[in-house]
């Protein structure tokens, strides 16, 4: 082993308690940033699942006027053929077709304007898992029921909050009244089979799910749909980009039957720029946390290393006089900081792993009442938030602690390298 490394290691233990305390402070900073990244992994994981899997998909194909106008007539034809072509794309994990509508939904006593979404349950189960919006339990022991059956049976699933507004329960019947594609009045009676609590505030308060054949019948849309959404094989930008490139070639003839319209292919970040911004915020927020935590770590290291260098002024002068080049002196100090940071990284990884395990299994209660968590940007989080685990939750803090220690030691190291041997040896 190089003699400078041996000296650095032993120097660390000359003031063992001071080194250990510094390492412990560094380790605590590291464990803290590991837990914060873990909580971000958990929270942004929920946001991602909700936004991409349930709300947006990676890419949506619509009539070019639908995204802005959301018109009843802005439809796609031959959706079955489009879906089977999409299933064959390697960049695609799956695709679903949806029908959208507005209706007055109510009982004989109460009613509300509601957004209706028509889905094909068997396809959704494999792709968007929209079935998960019906939770396994609801506050006060209310039975949440189940999602729609695979075959159209005039069933309806409505938001839990909407059900409370309408004062209805599972098994009750609801009447939907709307204008159909021919300008007539469409109306039908549906049986409530499930209640959703998805975290998507809009759907939970004023939304309902129908089998898409039932909704097509209500709106007199025959076999037209409003939207085909595709989930990419992964969230990676290049996979979604590859999917976007492949889609134009996959569109069947006659998809759009308006002469003055085209098919719109929109990635999720264009459909909901705010959602995209929120997902991007994660990187910035995480970076800020790392900067603050490791800025503090660096201050501690500067202090320890400056003291260590000052105490050894004479010794460093002697080493220089014996012929160690200034660069060697820099390395001697940096080795010491490196070893200190590796010690801290070891302790910090253990501490951090323990905290992450706690956050993943026990989590943090965030109940703001009635079993609901905090709401943010149209998303309601669960009442207990759990941490996630990722490679970066370990790698970034370890790199952070090592790099900040080396950076912080650079100043004392350069100071040591500039020592004049004659003056240094004379120093007491």
């Amino acid at each position, binding site marked *: 082993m190089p*003699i400078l490394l*041996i000296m650095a290691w*032993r120097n660390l233990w*000359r003031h063992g308690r001071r080194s250990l305390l510094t390492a412990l402070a560094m380790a605590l900073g590291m464990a803290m940033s590991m837990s914060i990244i873990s909580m971000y992994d958990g929270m942004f994981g929920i946001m991602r699942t909700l936004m991409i899997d349930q709300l947006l998909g990676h890419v949506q194909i619509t009539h070019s006027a639908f995204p802005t106008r959301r018109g009843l007539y802005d439809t796609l034809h031959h959706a079955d053929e489009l879906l089977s072509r999409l299933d064959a794309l390697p960049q695609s994990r799956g695709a679903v077709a949806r029908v959208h509508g507005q209706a007055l939904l109510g009982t004989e006593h109460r009613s509300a304007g509601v957004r209706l979404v028509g889905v094909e349950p068997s396809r959704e189960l494999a792709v968007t898992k929209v079935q998960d919006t019906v939770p396994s339990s609801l506050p006060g022991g209310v039975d949440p029921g189940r999602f729609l059956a695979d075959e159209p049976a005039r069933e309806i699933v409505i938001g839990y909050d909407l059900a409370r507004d309408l004062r209805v329960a599972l098994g009750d019947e609801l009447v939907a009244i709307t204008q159909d594609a021919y300008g007539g009045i469409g109306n039908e009676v549906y049986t409530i089979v499930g209640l959703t609590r998805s975290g998507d505030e809009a759907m939970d308060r004023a939304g309902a799910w129908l089998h898409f054949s039932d909704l097509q019948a209500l709106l007199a849309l025959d076999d037209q749909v409003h939207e085909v959404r595709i989930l990419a094989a992964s969230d990676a930008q290049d996979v979604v980009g590859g999917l976007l490139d492949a889609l134009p070639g996959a569109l069947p003839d006659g998809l759009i039957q308006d002469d003055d319209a085209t098919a719109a292919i929109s990635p999720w970040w264009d459909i909901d720029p705010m959602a995209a911004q929120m997902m991007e915020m994660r990187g910035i927020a995480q970076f800020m946390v790392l900067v603050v935590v490791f800025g503090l770590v660096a201050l501690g290291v500067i202090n320890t290393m400056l003291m260590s260098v000052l105490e050894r002024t004479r010794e460093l002068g002697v080493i220089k*006089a*014996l*012929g160690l080049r200034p660069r060697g002196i820099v390395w001697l100090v940096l080795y010491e900081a490196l070893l200190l940071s590796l010690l801290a990284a070891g302790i910090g990884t253990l501490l951090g792993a323990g905290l992450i395990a706690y956050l993943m299994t026990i989590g943090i209660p965030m109940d703001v009442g009635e079993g609901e968590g905090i709401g943010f940007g149209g998303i309601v989080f669960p009442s207990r938030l759990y941490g996630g685990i990722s490679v970066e939750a370990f790698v970034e803090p370890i790199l952070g602690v090592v790099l900040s220690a080396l950076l912080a030691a650079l100043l004392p190291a350069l100071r040591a390298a500039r020592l004049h*041997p*004659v003056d240094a040896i004379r120093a007491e």
Partner: protein
Amino acid sequence: MPIVTVRGLSRTYTRGEHKVHALREVDLDIEAGEFTALMGPSGSGKTTLLNLIGGLDAPTAGSVVVEGTDLAQLSAGARSDLRRERLGFVFQAYNLIPVLSAAENAEFVLALRGVPAAERRERAHAVLAQVGLKGLEDRRPGQLSGGQQQRVAVARALAGNPAVILADEPTANLDSTTGHDLIELMRELNTRDGATFIFATHDPKVLDAARRVIRLVDGEIDEDNRK
């Protein structure tokens, strides 16, 4: 050719508004194998001359040539290299590296030179035996007496077979007997191995042992006697 050639060497320090002439236009040749003592009262310039010969300090004027190399022509890094490869130092206050054992201190310069571990360990044990510290190789400086520490310092200076060993008041912190033993040791190394020594000293015992005594007064050579 002399191993060290000093010509017109001056060193002036600025202390506030005062200029202190520590050394004034000194000319000096040291031949290989000489055992030279620099003597003189405090402030006469002994340590300054030693530091300039060792490349630890830069002159105000004049030149120092060690084995044909003019130190003024060297960068700071190259002066480090010269000290490591060609010079040995013994300081007044021992100045061992406290975290290293006696053997590790003795082999320190060899380690900086990149000599393989086994080879330098063997050499360190040999020089420690030479200075009478056989069996104490694994002790840290804190576990050694002052005399033993200074012997380790001599061993460290010797280990690299330097052209010149520069020793600044090596006996100043030692009691009389220990100091005497150390001088005997260095004298023996000089006669037996031909090592070149230059001392700065007040110690009459060193002066007795020296074969050449140079007396400095106010930064100038006052006397230069070979015995």
